[in-house]
């Protein structure tokens, strides 16, 4: 029985593993995903499956090319999670090749070329999303109408296959703009918010009964998933809280001074993309800073960038760009923000503590 080679302590450990972490993140995504699939029906199911399968296939291919065993790496669930997160951020009725191409970009260019798990600079899912958005603006901004499962307007199984694999025949009839997109185009036509927002219900927006990405419509379900991850200690509070707080504070200030031009914090936080980014994308271990202070800086700057891009940028949604930009700053933040070593000052010199005279 004594086959284990004696080694340094500790001789015991926590049960947590890479696989269990990835699994729990996927569990936390389940409610929002299920709701997205319910809203957008068979085409969304097809797109999710295609993206997941493609992610696993690209991962296996890369590992094989690198001469590494594929099965253990596939088992850790990281490729599945990347594919899942990517699918969540895609337009639900996007064609199959968007999913496959996205998975390829995420896994090959976003992860494996850097050396695989833990080595990448950018969040793979966000990298893929942004590349797709820039390369295929039409497909990436065609937002399907909400057609809940079992309602008359919902596409059937075969119709779903047609939408995913051959494309929409008359996109204009069944698609429209997202809230943020709508507000942006309306503002360009000099329509104030009180006009452009007259049709939108805030509650529906928070619940997610609105056009949007496959798994990003329901801010509430994403928030619930995020809270579960916090409770399970898979993620820590600094990034999500600082990110949401910075968006809330900045948008609150602008909204206070010009409510006709700037959306309220309630609208900003209610956009599922921000919730998803705050709890699931920005908290990616590999591409975010290591220390709580670094994470707060990272999160608040992410929030600031998201707000700036949404409000003044060319795109209605800025989460992807903001996170990629901040990913590139992560090594810099980690270089300058380090914990203070016990018994030393911030610069690493030993403390000059002396016994205080009166103490004795």
């Amino acid at each position: 029985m004594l086959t284990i080679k004696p080694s340094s302590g500790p001789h015991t450990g926590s049960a947590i593993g890479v696989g269990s972490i990835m699994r729990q993140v996927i569990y936390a995504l389940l409610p929002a995903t299920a709701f997205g699939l319910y809203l957008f029906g068979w085409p969304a199911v097809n797109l999710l499956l295609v993206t997941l399968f493609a992610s696993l296939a690209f991962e296996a291919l890369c590992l094989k090319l690198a001469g590494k065993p594929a099965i253990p790496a596939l088992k850790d669930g990281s490729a599945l999670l990347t594919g899942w997160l990517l699918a969540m951020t895609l337009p639900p009725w996007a064609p199959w090749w968007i999913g496959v191409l996205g998975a390829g970009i995420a896994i090959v260019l976003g992860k494996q070329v850097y050396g695989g798990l833990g080595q990448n600079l950018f969040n793979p899912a966000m990298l893929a999303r942004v590349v797709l958005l820039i390369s295929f603006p039409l497909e990436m901004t065609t937002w399907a109408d909400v057609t809940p499962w079992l309602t008359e307007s919902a596409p059937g199984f075969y119709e779903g296959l047609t939408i995913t694999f051959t494309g929409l025949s008359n996109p204009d009839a069944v698609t429209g703009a997202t809230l943020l997109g709508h507000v942006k185009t309306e503002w360009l036509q000099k329509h104030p918010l009180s006009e452009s927002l007259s049709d939108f219900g805030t509650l529906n927006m928070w619940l997610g009964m609105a056009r949007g990405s496959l798994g990003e419509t329901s801010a509430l379900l994403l928030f619930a998933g995020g809270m579960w991850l916090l409770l399970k200690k898979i993620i820590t509070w600094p990034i999500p809280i600082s990110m949401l707080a910075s968006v809330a504070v900045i948008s609150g200030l602008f909204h206070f001074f010009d409510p006709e031009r700037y959306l309220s914090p309630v609208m900003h936080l209610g956009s599922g993309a921000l919730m998803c980014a705050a709890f699931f994308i920005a908290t990616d271990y590999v591409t975010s800073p290591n220390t709580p202070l670094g994470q707060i800086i990272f999160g608040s700057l992410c929030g600031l960038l998201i707000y700036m891009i949404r409000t003044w940028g060319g795109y209605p949604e800025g989460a992807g760009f903001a996170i990629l930009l901040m990913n590139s700053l992560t090594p810099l933040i980690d270089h300058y923000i380090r914990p203070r070593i016990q018994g030393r000052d911030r610069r690493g010199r030993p403390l000059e503590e002396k016994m205080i005279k009166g103490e004795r």
Partner: protein
Amino acid sequence: MIALLQSLRIRGGIHVNEHKQATAGLPIDDSFPLPKRLYIPLQQHVGKPAEPVVRVGDTVFKGQLLAHSQGLISAPVHAPSSGTVADIAEYPAPHPSALPIRTVFLDTDGTDTVQSGESATDPFTLEPEEISLRVASAGVVGLGGATFPSAVKLNLGRQNKIHTLLINGGECEPYLTCDDRLMQENAAEIVDGIRIMLHGMETGRAMVGIEDNKPEALKAMRTAANFHPNIEICKIPTRYPMGWDRQLIRYLTGREVPAGGRATDVGVLMHNVATAYAIHQAIRYGRPLIDRVVTVAGGAVANPKNVRVPIGTLISEVLVFCGADKTRTGRWVMGGPMMGEALPFADVPVVKATSGVLALTGSEVKQGEEQPCIRCARCISVCPAGLLPVDMANRIRNNRLEAAVDIGLKDCISCGSCSYVCPSNIPLVHYFKFAAGELAARQQAKHKSEQTSKLIDERNKRMERIEKQKAEELAQARAAKEQSEKADTTI
């Protein structure tokens, strides 16, 4: 509010799975049968090994001096029982390497005869220096695991005029309950030991830190310290590694010991509760340190408990006494599972540092394939020293040891919190220990090559000088010869 402020003083740390319930409620077992042969290593402490004063064949009494201490930092070793010295030879040490060290083999005669009647003295009539001397001659060392000679620390405390003596009753390692039991059963003796130490260090105040997972020990110690207002019993949170002296000093006093400095720099010193008990025994009754309480636990042990065993007992015998199943044992550990040492085999002796003997099953031992680091930063958030374990390990892996030192490798205390929480099973502590050893080896090699080149230089100079001298002598001789020849010719 104060508790909240104090909890801010704790850095990092982890909540470990304690595994203490199996042994914490059972009394210390005093019925361990005297082994036929004891193996008493001459080095059971930090510093120089002890030098034997007995010879093979000598008959010794229980408590008789076997080997005296050498130098300033050392400790003597005494006979744990009466019997005959069978041999003084090399025997494997309780260490992962199991390298042999000088050991006294003692065949016990079963009578446990004590040399002379135990001498009872009132310690408070003794001079403080005398306390240190007696503690030194009783061979008392830090029993928390560090085994630093206690008398040296008492002197340090007195010379540096410390204001508070801190007593570590944290026992934060999982499985171990020997200090817990000692506090529950011998609280009065421990408090007496603390008072003797205070007298020996000429210090007024003592604080005892006990983790809040030991309510019985807290109660017993509070009762025992009731009439001694200068001894404060403090409840501390259960959080590994609370027993690290710097962590406990910071929690109890709010002071941080400077890197590279000593606890005395901030006016405190720390001893373990078991050391206080040993000092009580040494001063009150003149009993040297010849036995200790050992926690025997682990999944492969049928009857886990605390046992009082003579120093020098083979760990394998203690395990058999507690019903350990060899076939189910995946790893033997001496000490706790966090910082203890894995033993390649169990036929090594119990020493003064042996707080625990664990026979862990395969499923208790953390194993599993090492996976890539996912930079989850758990290691950083749990590091009590404020280090970046992930970055240090990366630098070591790339053979950039100096770069690892730059970000604090030397401030690592090997507490193992980082490895404990790592989801990728990266043996971080192993990297750090390797790097520390490798750096020391390089330093030594460098020193050696410098010495060698210095010797070569000196030899070259010497040879040159000799050549020169020879040449001069030759020239002189020639000159003398020429002169004498000249003289000859002139004649």
